[in-house]
């Protein structure tokens, strides 16, 4: 089946093109079917390929497929090629699997919306681009997928285009991530120029051979790639677009801004880990960015009242954990958390969507309350998702993956211990902020009017993701609980091994932190609570540290000001001056042609006298 790998990204692309061409002519039912089935077929194919890959792995655990020669010019060549190895395999399964569940959910969630077909056209396009991103065997194809998912994100954040605020959020997301993309682009130029190839595997091999560890060029290249990664993954300092991106439809938030696209940065760093190993400074920076972002986002999540913004900051924070894991060299753990996070965060977003669709799209948690009895399906899903997010010990997937990250950090020397501490504080915050939301939304007084029932297309994805959020962690279990290493065994050919930690202290402390957070949330929010007072501190965290404020003043406003004052192009006034001067001279000279014979004779006489004088005198 492997030879049909190219069909995996192509199927959603076909779906997208069909939906675009049929825009306005397809019935809602047909459009939804095309949208969901194209991704469903891709998922079936992906899982079939995966089964073959696991039972009968190709030589070196790499399967390469060249579709066509893209360009070969001036010594630079690139193929349009796919590469299936354990890393892209895991990503492919997450994207198609979770992607399909979200598509299925969306067919019901989006019912009755204007532009239903367009929604699935764009969602399919996004899935195709995301698959290209992870399957690409060279940087140029990866970059194509990379920009493609950015486009999908832009189109879907701005899906409800009539509201200019949505358009602003969409453009903000695209432009802020494009700043990172441009760094990545420069990184590609650097790598291509110095390593002579666009092929990722070759480039990594050449880099390891020709660049010594810590060499400036390797460090620079790694930092440029990191620039791309922080943009897409909404990490400091390019994190500001993600909360605003929540104006998109909730399935979009689940798919793009939680499960897949925002983890592209993690994938990129894992894919180019050989380069980052040559640049310890860059790798350490990855960890520090992760630690700082997870704390910033964790505190910010506590100061939000909008359920989707809480989840957005939570996503940012969880990706911070993945970056932290990459930074301390716990590569497997980063991938593991990427996977479990895709399960439980998609679950959280979908159950949040399931709640808001019954509340006329009300997203303020203080206008919810008491929903546990009225919306049991959403309640249990959200609760399971929250437990996994808070890493409730032993029974959730999030516990195992977060534990893997924190024990990796624990083993990582002094800097690792500092990052570990950040991670533990973050674990506490996670338990606190998500269970604050749980208690406020589902318990206490009842607000608002709940209407309607869920169909199977809502409940099935929630059920499947709930199971995955609980059991998905069992593929990798630390030594104390039975020592399962399915994932790290699978990833062994592509990612360096992680140091095994048998010390149980970090595990206990982190579990304690998470439980403490949950307990504290119960203590504060179990009973009905008032909307928080807007103290300066609350406002500071509500605005996530004021980065938007800063960027607006330092970057956005000066540029807009310059564009406004110079909209008439001051260079043109230079030519206007020439034109004006020519006219002025013309006016002056024209006076001499006044038709009076006296003046002409006088002029003639003066001229002759002057000429004779010059001739005589010189």
């Amino acid at each position, binding site marked *: 089946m492997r030879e049909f790998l190219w069909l995996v990204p192509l199927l959603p692309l076909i779906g997208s093109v069909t939906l675009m061409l049929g825009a306005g002519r397809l019935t809602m039912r047909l459009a939804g079917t095309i949208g969901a089935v194209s991704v469903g077929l891709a998922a079936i194919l992906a899982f079939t390929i995966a089964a073959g890959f696991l039972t009968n792995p190709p030589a070196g655990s790499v399967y390469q497929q060249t579709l066509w020669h893209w360009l070969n010019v*001036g010594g630079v060549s690139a193929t349009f090629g796919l590469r299936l190895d354990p890393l892209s395999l895991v990503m492919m399964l997450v994207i198609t699997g979770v992607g399909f569940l979200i598509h299925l959910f969306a067919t019901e969630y989006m019912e009755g919306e204007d532009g239903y077909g367009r929604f699935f056209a764009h969602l399919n396009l996004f899935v195709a681009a995301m698959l290209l991103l992870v399957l690409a065997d060279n940087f140029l194809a990866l970059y194509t997928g990379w920009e493609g998912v950015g486009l999908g994100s832009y189109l879907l954040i701005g899906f409800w285009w009539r509201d200019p605020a949505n358009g602003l959020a969409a453009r903000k997301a695209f*432009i802020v991530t494009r700043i990172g993309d441009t760094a990545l682009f420069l990184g590609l130029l650097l790598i291509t120029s110095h390593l002579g190839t666009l092929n990722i595997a070759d480039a990594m091999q050449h880099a390891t051979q020709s660049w010594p560890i810590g060499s400036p060029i390797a460090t620079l290249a790694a930092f440029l790639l990191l620039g791309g990664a922080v943009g897409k993954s909404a990490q400091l300092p390019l994190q500001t677009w993600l909360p605003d991106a929540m104006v998109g439809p909730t399935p979009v938030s689940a798919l793009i801004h939680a499960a897949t696209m925002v983890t592209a940065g993690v994938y990129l760093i894992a894919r180019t880990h050989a380069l980052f190993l040559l640049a310890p400074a860059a790798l350490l920076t990855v960890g520090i960015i992760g630690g700082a972002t997870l704390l910033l986002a964790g505190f910010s999540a506590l100061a939000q009242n909008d359920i989707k913004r809480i989840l957005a900051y939570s996503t940012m924070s969880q990706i911070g954990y993945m970056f932290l894991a990459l930074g301390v060299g716990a590569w497997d753990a980063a991938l593991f958390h990427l996977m479990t996070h895709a399960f439980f965060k998609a679950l959280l977003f979908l159950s949040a969507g399931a709640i808001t669709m019954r509340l006329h799209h009300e997203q303020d948690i203080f206008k919810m309350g008491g929903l546990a009895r009225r919306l049991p399906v959403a309640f249990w899903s959200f609760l399971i998702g929250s437990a996994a997010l808070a890493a409730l010990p032993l029974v959730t997937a999030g516990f195992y993956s977060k534990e893997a990250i924190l024990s990796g950090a624990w083993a990582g020397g002094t800097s690792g211990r500092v990052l570990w501490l950040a991670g533990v504080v973050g674990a506490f915050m996670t338990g606190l902020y998500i269970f604050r939301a749980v208690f406020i939304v589902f318990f206490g007084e009842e607000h608002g009017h709940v209407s309607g029932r869920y169909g199977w297309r809502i409940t099935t994805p929630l059920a499947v993701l709930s199971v995955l959020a609980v059991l998905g962690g069992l593929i990798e279990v630390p030594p104390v609980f039975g020592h399962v290493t399915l994932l790290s065994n699978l990833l062994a050919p592509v990612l360096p091994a992680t140091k095994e930690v048998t010390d149980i202290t970090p595990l206990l402390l982190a579990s304690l932190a998470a439980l403490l957070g949950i307990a504290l949330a119960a203590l504060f929010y179990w009973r009905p609570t008032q909307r928080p007072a807007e103290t300066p501190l609350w406002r500071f965290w509500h605005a996530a540290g004021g980065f938007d404020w800063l960027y607006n003043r330092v970057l956005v406003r000066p540029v807009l000001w310059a564009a406004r004052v110079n909209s008439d192009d001051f260079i043109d006034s230079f030519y206007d001056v020439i034109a004006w001067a020519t006219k002025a001279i013309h006016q002056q000279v024209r006076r001499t042609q006044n038709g009076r014979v006296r003046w002409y004779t006088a002029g003639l006489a003066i001229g002759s006298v002057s000429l004779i004088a010059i001739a005589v005198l010189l």
Partner: protein
Amino acid sequence: MTLVWLLLIPGIGGAVAWMAGGRHPNLPRRIALAVLAIDFIIALSLIGPAMSSAIPAGHAAWIASFERPWIPQLGISFELYLDGLSLVLILLTIALGFISVVISWTEITDRVGLFHANLLWSVTGVIGVFLALDLFLFFFFWELMLVPMYFLIALWGHEHRFYAAIKFFIFTQGSGLLMLVAILVLVFVHQQTTGHFTFDYLALLGTKMNPTMAFWLMLGFFIAFAVKLPAVPFHTWLPDAHTAAPTAGSVLLAGILLKTGAYGLIRFVVPLFPDAAHAFAPYAMTLGVIGILYAALLAYGQNDMKRLVAYSSVSHMGFVLLGVFAWNTLALQGVVIQMLAHGVSTGALFILVGALQERIHTRDMRQMGGLWGSIPHLSAFGMVFAIASLGLPGLGNFIGEFLILLGSFQVGVPLTVIAAIGLVAGAAYALLLVQRAFHGNAAPHDETAAKPCDLTAPHLLVMAGLFLALLGLGLYPQPVFDQVAAGLAVVQHDGTPSTGPTTQFAEATP
């Protein structure tokens, strides 16, 4: 002889179309379509490798040639040569000419015969520019393409059309005169050193002269081409010309006429004055980078949609200038793709602005908004081409920008890094256009006015065709690379400094 037919067919076709205009307005349109279709087929038949027979040694890149004495007393001959570079640009010219006729079908109803005559003559002039190798003949065509374009703007244009037409004329004419002086001096210098009076480009290559002289002559050529490109600070005629021009005029201007500037830089400036051009390269590249960013900033500040597209054009041509003076295979191939992709994507955007103006009678984006609701097809294509112009991978513009920046990276890293900021700036103005025109709330006046009709079948076909062309350039540009490779290799060889390349300009060794 094929090359002569390439010129004669649209030339004569123009005259026929003019005369036919009196009978029925559709007749000149049909004639123009037929003429351009035939011309396109002739040009297509020339696709292929260079013919080695009857080609001077060392210039093996020529695919076809035609040479007859014209004014032998002055060393002027009717000398046409075609290589891969000329060929792809001629194909673009004819294709965009064809499309210009299609999209003017309903827009132009006044003096239809004369309009199509001017359109065809403009195309003739451009084809001549891409073919002529005798400098006198080149200058002749250079002026020839100018005059019909002047009339297209002045007679069929929108508001301020006379101002714009005259500005366009003075800028190009003034800079053209600089080039004429440079050509004449070059010919005299060549006569002094060799005793041979000729305007033949192939003979004038490698003329020995002192560096000061070379610098001034190079500058004469450079300014003429930089005005046409246009490069900042010579760009101010372009937004006015575009806003005033009829849609077909804008398509021809952006799609083709600007490319003659880039072509001139590649064909003449660097090969004729390699040392001077290489010494000047850092300044020219700096101008290119300034152009990318400055024009992008201007584009962002516009309310007139056509001006926005016009400034985006200037920004894209900044990449071309940067790439030409980086002067390595990567950058030059990137320049070619950039020219083709820009011709297609900007042409398409101008067509859409024209179609929009025909429907809602304004180009002011403050009076637009929410058009997606009433004219979804036009809006969707508007978004597609806006996204192409911001350089989305998979479409041609990205390949152009990628190769240009990869090439310039070998030559000057800081300039390349600054130029790359243009990628962010491009996204900013392109998405702003989408937002202000197609998204957001519908403008208030919309409710009273009749609902505008969406794109009609001819426009839809044109848009789909242009999009497929961009997709082809983006996903499989190799045929273009192969077609122009030999021609570029020869100009690159001619344009290598006689003193040997300085380290700064050495090809990168990957």
